[in-house]
Every structure is written in structure tokens, then in C-alpha cells.
């Protein structure tokens, strides 16, 4: 493949990736407009309600050992989880990229 073809292919895949990212963002944003009055509850309350509806006598036989004291603390823990994961992914991609750049540099 000539350099030009490689460049074109790279540009093309970049466009596709950008498009895919926009699609994901749309998938997140569109529901907010379609279901305008919804609560967007995050708790697992609905399933809980459904269970009590089906079997009103059911009593949960165990409760969580630790519960985040507030929504803020919970979101802190959730974002820490995401940050940890994103950090590892970023580290890995950076490592791959640096390695490739070094190798490409040596090749020239």
C-alpha cells in the first residue's frame, strides 16, 4: 500500500470512530427528550415494587453490609470506579501508542 492509501484509510477510520462516538452520545441524550417527564430513577426500586406486587409477603432476608450514606457518597464511589477503569485503559493505550511511535521512528 502506498503512503497515500494508508493515510486515506486512517482518515476514513477516524471518521467512522467519530461518527460512532456521536451515535453513543445521541443514544444517551435522545432519551432525555423523548421521556421528558420521566424520573430517570437509578435505584432498583421498580423491580423491588414488582416483587412486592407479585408476592406481598416477601421480606428481604439480608441487607447490604454497607450502604453509602448519601447520594453524593454513592456518586463519589461510582465515579471512582469509572475513573479507575478509565485510567487503566488510558495507560494501556498510551503504552501501546508510545511503543508504536518508537518503533516507527526506528524504522525510518
Amino acid at each position: 500500500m502506498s503512503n497515500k492509501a494508508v493515510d486515506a484509510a486512517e482518515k476514513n477510520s477516524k471518521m467512522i470512530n467519530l461518527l460512532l462516538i456521536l451515535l453513543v452520545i445521541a443514544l444517551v441524550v435522545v432519551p432525555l427528550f423523548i421521556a421528558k417527564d420521566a424520573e430517570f430513577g437509578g435505584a432498583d426500586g421498580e423491580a423491588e415494587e414488582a416483587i412486592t406486587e407479585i408476592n406481598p409477603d416477601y421480606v428481604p432476608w439480608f441487607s447490604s453490609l454497607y450502604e453509602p450514606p448519601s447520594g453524593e457518597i454513592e456518586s463519589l464511589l461510582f465515579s471512582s470506579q469509572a475513573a479507575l477503569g478509565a485510567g487503566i485503559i488510558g495507560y494501556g493505550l498510551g503504552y501501546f501508542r508510545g511503543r508504536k511511535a518508537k518503533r516507527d521512528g526506528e524504522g525510518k
Partner: protein
Amino acid sequence: MDLSKRVQLFLCISVLVLLIPLKADAMHIMEGFLPPMWCLVWGLLTLPFVVIGLKSIKRIIAENPRLKILLAMAGAFAFVLSALKLPSVTGSCSHPTGVGFGAILFGPTVMSVLGLIVLLFQSLLLAHGGLTTLGANTFSMAVVGPLVAYGVFVLVRKMRGSQSMAIFLGAALGDLLTYMTTSVQLALAFPAEIGGFAASMAKFMGIFAVTQIPLAVSEGILTVLIFNAIAAYGKDELKLLKFFPEGGMNHVK
């Protein structure tokens, strides 16, 4: 382009299904909300997959120590995605699982172990899911999800579908089937008085599966994206996993 046309079709169908209004929250089974008998059943069913997964991870690292970083990234991807509670057209939130990526790279049982770690973290620190329901939740998210993702990926490749399409469909369906499994688990434990298992099943499917459809599409796309990113720079590792050349997909045993 062939790929984007099929993606478009898939999206259109999804959006159509989504327009059925249903209010629901969807996630893992809550602590204490599964009778002890079922906790035991799902726990026992999950156990062999975790054991095989541990052995599989050991072997992968022993054979190719340089794959460690990719293994960590597979776990990290599940960590990120299961922390993102996304809004759905049903007016409630749920989160993707992120297990399809690792399952496609390393095989399904590896993700049984990594998924278990994610679920343990969430049940201990976040009161999300639970210890008593850990077996059931691991079964749906870390056994069924990865198996479906891997199976669909291999199937689409066999049918000569493109690699991206195989990854997209694998990850999206793995995500969706995870929550369908959750519905089956709850329906088995809580059959309705009238209508029994089927009636409960319909109810829980409405809560868990429908909300999940757009998130499954998101998960499919995000998995293609991370795969593209790794394919751009980390071809060596993917070659170790026999991902290249195109078409010659064949997993390390």
C-alpha cells in the same frame, strides 16, 4: 457502506421497539431479594465458570506475559461501563456491563472472573446488587453475557460478517441477554399467582430488558471503539490472540 447500513437497520429496529413507553429501572438483583434456595442454585451454577476462568487467566499470563496489560484493560472496560448509569427511552436508567470486550478477546470464562470482581466491588461498596445475590448476578452478567458475546462474535465471523459487525453484535447481544437472564431469574423465584412464571417473566422483562435495548446498542458501539483504538496501536497483542489477519480469527485455547 455495508457495515453502517446494517448498523442503521439495527438502530432503527431498536428505536422502534423503544418507543413503547414503559417506566422502569433496571439493574442487578438487589441484596436479599432472592430466596436462599435460588441464591445457592445460581451460585453453584456460576462456580465452575469462575474456576475455569481462573485457570484460563493463569495460562494466558504464563504463556504470554505481555498480554497482562490487555487483560487489565478488559477488566477496566467492564469497570467503566458498569459504573455508567445511562438514561433509556423508557424513562429510567440502567448500565451496560462491558464484559463483551474481554469475552471476545480472551474467551468467555475469563470475564466470569473479572465480572465477579466488578460485582463484588459494587455489592460491597455501593450497595448495588448484593452478596446473597452475587451468584445470580454473576451468572447473568459474567457467565451468560460473555458466553453470548463470544458465541455471537464467532458465529458472525463464521458467516463472514466483518470484524466490527461481529464485535458490535456480540457485545450488544451479550449485554441484552444479561438482563433477560436477570428477568428469568426473578420470574423463577417469584412466579405470579395468576399466570405463574410466564406472567412474572413478562413483567420483569418489561422492567429489565426493554430499558436495556438502547444501552445494549451503546455497549456494542463502545466495544467497537475500544477495539479500534487497540487495533490501531496494539496490534502485537491482538496478533498474539490471533486476531489478525482479517478473517483468520481463531482464539488461543
